[in-house]
């Protein structure tokens, strides 16, 4: 392949990349094929769309060794169920941290009454056992005309449950859940099962029924097995929930951030305006300062912005205010790489080098500086990401993505375009590369 062919292939690659980036960035659903592959939208942080983030500390110190992560998972499940009941679209409940700093992070986008949600989440999960009650006229009377209760609470609650496990039926191999009560619970359970042979006993979590097995015989050893047609997954989930109810881990709300919808909308609009103005300023600055190569750099910069947005969309990076700041800052740094290269190019041309070797030389010379500068910034980003709060992380992540993409766009794209065009006679006038070079260069 000749250099000319090579540069043409490079050019085709750049065009293809640009088209791809535009297609990805366009709103989902507008472009049929791409939408199918990247079926995602931009993920906006709560500070841009309004919403509430809650961080809970889960106190796992009361729990023995191996059950800790299970218990944390249980807390997560309970919170998720409670949040789901609240009707927020796409709530996110995640656990982070280790044993000593276990955290549950709850994100409720667009929630209008966060205080109520907090109240609901804050309740410790309650597991209790209830007896079936036949509905009679007498019962109806005591409830003052409220819907008749079919279940009567007993004294047996999650406090008496030592643990719940998934086990398997020895004959059929079907998954079942075994319960282990403490001594008080064992006695209560003996009484309840004694009273209710042939009837059902309801196991309730947070007031809603989980399961209601029929009592076969009076149980006095404090062990119970819930059989049923469970799939393994279901059985595991149920055991986790029972453990969560049985081992109420105290959770404390340690951080709350609520952003109203007005402020979120406002911040989003402003950030977009700032981003566009920042990008345009750079485009104008580069063209004024470096003329033709500046125009190429400006194109590379726009492609750079598109690529960043495409990566955010594909990787599902959450865009926040600080994250956009990181992105915008990285635009400035991407330009820096081009400045380094073009200053070298000017020097090379001034020293009388021809255009094509000049371009190659400039890139080779500037690379070391670009690499050093970017590596040190990437290290800063890594540190900030490891140690920062979620706001700081957003900043560090977009800045790091920006730096990595800029290494590609500012260097590869600009070089490809410059080399491709330096093969054309039209672009051989050195005057378009910088001031006052034409006469010197033609010597």
């Amino acid at each position, binding site marked *: 392949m000749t250099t000319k062919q090579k540069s043409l292939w490079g050019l085709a690659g750049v065009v293809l990349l640009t088209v791809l980036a535009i297609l990805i960035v366009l709103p989902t659903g507008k472009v049929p094929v791409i939408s199918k592959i990247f079926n995602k939208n931009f993920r906006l942080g709560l500070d841009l769309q309004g919403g509430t983030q809650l961080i809970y500390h889960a106190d796992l110190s009361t729990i023995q060794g191996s059950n800790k992560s299970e218990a944390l998972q249980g807390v997560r499940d309970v919170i998720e169920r409670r949040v789901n009941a609240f009707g927020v679209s796409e709530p996110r409940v995640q656990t982070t941290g280790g044993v000593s700093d276990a955290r549950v992070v709850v994100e409720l986008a667009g929630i209008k009454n966060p205080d109520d949600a907090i109240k609901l989440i804050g309740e410790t999960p309650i597991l209790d056992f209830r007896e079936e009650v036949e509905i009679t006229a007498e019962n109806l009377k005591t409830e003052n005309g409220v819907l008749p209760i079919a279940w009567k609470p007993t004294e047996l609650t999650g406090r008496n449950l030592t643990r719940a496990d998934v086990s398997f039926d020895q004959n059929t191999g079907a998954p079942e859940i075994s319960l282990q009560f403490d001594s008080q619970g064992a006695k209560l359970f003996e009484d309840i099962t004694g009273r209710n042979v042939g009837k059902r006993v309801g196991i309730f979590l947070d007031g809603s029924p989980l399961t209601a097995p029929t009592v076969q015989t009076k149980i006095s050893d404090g062990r119970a097995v819930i059989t049923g047609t469970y799939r393994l997954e279901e059985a595991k989930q149920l055991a986790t929930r029972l453990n969560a109810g049985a081992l109420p881990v105290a959770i404390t709300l340690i*951080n709350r951030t609520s952003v109203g919808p007005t402020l979120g909308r*406002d911040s989003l609009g402003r950030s977009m*305006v*700032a981003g566009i103005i920042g990008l345009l300023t750079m485009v104008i600055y580069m063209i004024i300062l470096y003329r033709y190569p500046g125009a190429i750099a400006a194109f590379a910069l726009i492609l750079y912005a598109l690529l960043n947005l495409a990566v955010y969309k594909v990787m599902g990076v959450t865009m926040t205010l600080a994250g956009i700041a990181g992105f915008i*800052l990285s635009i*400035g740094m991407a330009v820096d790489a081009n400045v380094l290269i073009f200053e070298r190019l000017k020097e090379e041309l001034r020293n009388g080098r021809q255009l094509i070797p000049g371009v190659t030389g400039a890139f080779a010379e500037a690379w070391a500086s670009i690499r050093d500068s970017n590596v*040190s910034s990437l290290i800063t980003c890594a540190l*900030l990401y490891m140690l920062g*709060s979620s706001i700081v992380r957003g*900043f560090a992540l977009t800045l790091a993505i920006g730096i990595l993409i800029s290494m590609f766009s500012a260097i590869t794209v600009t070089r490809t375009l410059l080399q491709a065009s330096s093969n054309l006679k039209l672009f051989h006038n050195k005057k378009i590369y910088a001031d006052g070079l034409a006469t010197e260069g033609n010597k």
Partner: protein
Amino acid sequence: MMLLKFLSISKNSRYWFGFSAALIVLSFVALGFWGLRPGIDFVGGSIMELRGQNVTVPNIRTSLQKNNQNSIEVQSTSDNSVQVRMQQLTNDEHTKILEALKKEFSGIEELRFDSVGPIFSKDLVIKSVMAIILSSLGILVYLAFVFHKSSAVVSSWAFGTFAVVALIHDVIIIGGFFAVYARFFSASADSLFITAILTVIGFSVHDTIVIYNRVKSNLRILRLPFGELVDLSVLETFTRSVNTSVTTLLVLLALLFFGGSTIRPFVATLCFGIILGSYSSVFIAAPLLVWWQERNKKQVKR
């Protein structure tokens, strides 16, 4: 460029040193007078931002005091809203206060409410201290790596030490800047402030390294008096230095003037820090080398 020659950085170093010394003194004065108020993410507490009709600083203060919230700070923001900082509110307290406010001011809107408890803030303090220690170590290792080969004229220790001196200079003056900024606009030194400082010193140390590297390579190929050689090295790297700061600054200014208000203190600190970082590399770090070398020469002569 002519201007730069005219400035003749190393010959006029006493002016730059004087200027920086003045800035440092002013920074300490500002820090001493107004201090750096840590953000609620470091010390715990709640911040409430409100907007609406009749929502003014005195009105909100009186209303909140009626609700037994006495240790409050009420400030107006640049966005036509009122910001209240107070002790950490429990959820119930928050609900109660908000209901009372809604009754008193029709159409009041809570733009934002942040609440941080002691566990979270303690955690963040530890993490931030770790970040500061690790990045300082990182910078020292980076400097040791870049300057591990000593040159005949200036020892590698001098390069490393003066780069660190320039950094400390930056951190003190950014502290002073933020004390002044926080005094006039509502702001507190939160984790984003730490982030701004770490980002800026990353930029600044790199600027310094670029100049010092040029000095080192010029030392190998040129026979010039040391002062002139440093000036020349600064000149050669100046376009690059200025351009980097200008491009970064331009985008940040767009963010400062048009971007969201919540992170404005952060962006302002970044803007100031980037200017300062470039200044300190050219006008402090470079002349310090000359000063040191001349001092050594005198000692040898004696």
